[in-house]
């Protein structure tokens, strides 16, 4: 809510970063997945994380959401530690999550899937089932408009992906976490999704953490981090992302 104004700010304010990860170590049982990961997401910026299959990108996002507990390290959100909080409280603080594989609730209608997203809204009162889906969200994803009464599980993969993003922004989060939103989706829909995400960022000023394999989408970000074997091995301005870097960190 604090970053939504876009007044010109001559002197940069020293605001706490939206997300600051430092020295993070995560294990699955005894296998060491994330090794001393550091990452910063400044307010209103979009950060892209790239890396090959299985390096630990999803693991990092799940740890941010609280689905996995780190063995050591810190995760600070707007200057406060997230680690003592359970997953649902983190969502309430303003973190919207679009997981890999979409995780649409199958036997809820599309509308109910969207209204469940209101649960994380800070000052949501009353029965969400009596609320309406805001027009701006339906405009971002016009396909959903005709499908509001269909079961979420009956949508196609591309439609589910759009539903998952729409659901995540229902609560107007300050940080949007996207895990491979274009995985397994045809090129024309990829462009739709890309445009929708860009519009969300431009109109709301929210920060974004994006995991993405497509160069074109990744280049929309402000900064990039590259991950290898669970550690961050490279980072910089996303404008420096070119096929050379991609070759090094993505091509198998």
């Amino acid at each position, binding site marked *: 809510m604090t970053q939504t104004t876009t007044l010109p700010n001559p002197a940069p304010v020293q605001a706490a970063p939206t997300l600051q990860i430092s020295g993070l170590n995560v294990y699955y049982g005894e296998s060491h997945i994330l090794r001393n990961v550091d990452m910063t997401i400044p307010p209103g910026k979009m950060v892209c994380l790239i890396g090959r299959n299985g390096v630990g990108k999803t693991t990092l996002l799940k740890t941010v959401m609280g689905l996995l507990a780190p063995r050591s390290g810190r995760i600070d959100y707007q200057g406060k530690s997230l680690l003592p909080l*359970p997953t*649902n409280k983190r969502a309430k603080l303003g973190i919207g*999550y679009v997981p890999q594989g979409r995780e649409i609730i199958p036997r*809820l209608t599309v509308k109910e899937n969207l209204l469940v997203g209101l*649960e994380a809204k800070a000052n949501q009162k009353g029965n969400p089932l009596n609320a309406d889906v805001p027009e701006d969200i339906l405009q971002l994803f016009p396909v959903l408009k005709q499908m509001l009464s269909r079961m979420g599980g009956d949508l196609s993969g591309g439609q589910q992906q759009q539903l998952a993003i729409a659901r995540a922004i229902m609560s107007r989060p300050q940080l949007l976490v996207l895990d491979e939103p274009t995985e397994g989706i045809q090129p024309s829909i990829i462009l739709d999704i890309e445009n929708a995400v860009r519009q969300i960022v431009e109109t709301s000023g929210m920060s974004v953490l994006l995991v993405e394999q497509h160069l074109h989408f990744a280049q929309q970000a402000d900064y990039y981090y590259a991950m290898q074997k669970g550690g961050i091995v490279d980072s910089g301005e996303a404008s420096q992302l070119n096929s050379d870097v991609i070759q090094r960190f993505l091509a198998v």
Partner: protein
Amino acid sequence: MNTLITTLFNGVSIGTVLLIVALGLAIVFGLMGVINLAHGELMMLGAYTTYVVQNGFKTYLGTESQGLYIWAAIPLSFVVAALVGLALERGVIRFLYGRPLETLLATWGVSLILRQFVRSVSWGMVGGLLAFCGLFFGGKWLLGKSARIPSYRQNLVTTGLFLLSGAIAWFVGSNINNDPQLARPWFSARNVDVTAPGWLQGSIRVTAGIQFPASRLFIIVLTLLCLLGVYLFLQKSAWGLRIRSVTQNRDMSACLGIPTAQVDAVTFALGSGLAGVAGFAVTLLGSVGPNLGVNYIVDAFMVVVVGGVGNLLGSVIAALGIGIVTYLLGSGTMVRLLGGADGGAVVSFFDFFATTSMAKVMVFALIILFLQVRPAGLFPPKGRSAEV
């Protein structure tokens, strides 16, 4: 025609008793996947609540208006069973989610405790228990609020507090028990009877030759109301939306900001409360004893499994189907339909099963056969939720 209507009514009547008993379990086991063997004992608590409420009405309102007790007993048996269920979920089951075997054993233990509790509960016991809870939890709360105890001392302090409050509670309890009046068990192990209000004891004449027992009709209406209530709660309320979301995808629901632990507690309390209402319903059919739950728990699981775990509509159809088949077999209607008691082998086969207990054997055999053909029940869970 008359026989057909009577048969249908009796079958539906058996079915609705099954259904109201299974409804709570359809939520706890069907939606949450918790195998709660103490579900029958929650029913029993509902039945004893009804008994207590009725006695209260008899004492304070006199015999004429004691029939009004049912309007207080229905909500109270729901509340009592729901609160006990809530305590069970918070105290035991929530630590065992995803561990069916441990849940099974723990809830079985709880069912034994609850059964023994109603056998031996007396003022002395209640006094002791209250003293213990007040001292132990109150003490923990006070210590947590004021004193800063280092974490390595926590266990020591808790044990000390436990022993201390246990000793005081025992002292309080045995002191109360010195008075033989107060030491007498409230219910004892013997069965007690609940007298239904007068208007539920007779029959209602529909046409000449067709009479329906009023209590059976009342149970049918009560079951329909419970079903409607559950349906509306799940489909239209905010908690219903949360429950449906959490039961289908727990992790994602948490990521969307739903307090999953609270949702578990509410869901479990709802299922337990419905068990309490079922306990009320069966007081209209027979006497109330500590083992009341045991008689119904198997039926309840049977209905949920045949209907397809996680599917409320399936439970409804399964309960009615099982009820009608049980009645057709047990009442000898099959024999009559096939033309007299001295027909061929088929008739004597059905004749053999034409008692209540043998009909049950036959129904179980049929269900086993049915589950060979459709292991997931009438309505197998579809799609992604099938993985859980």
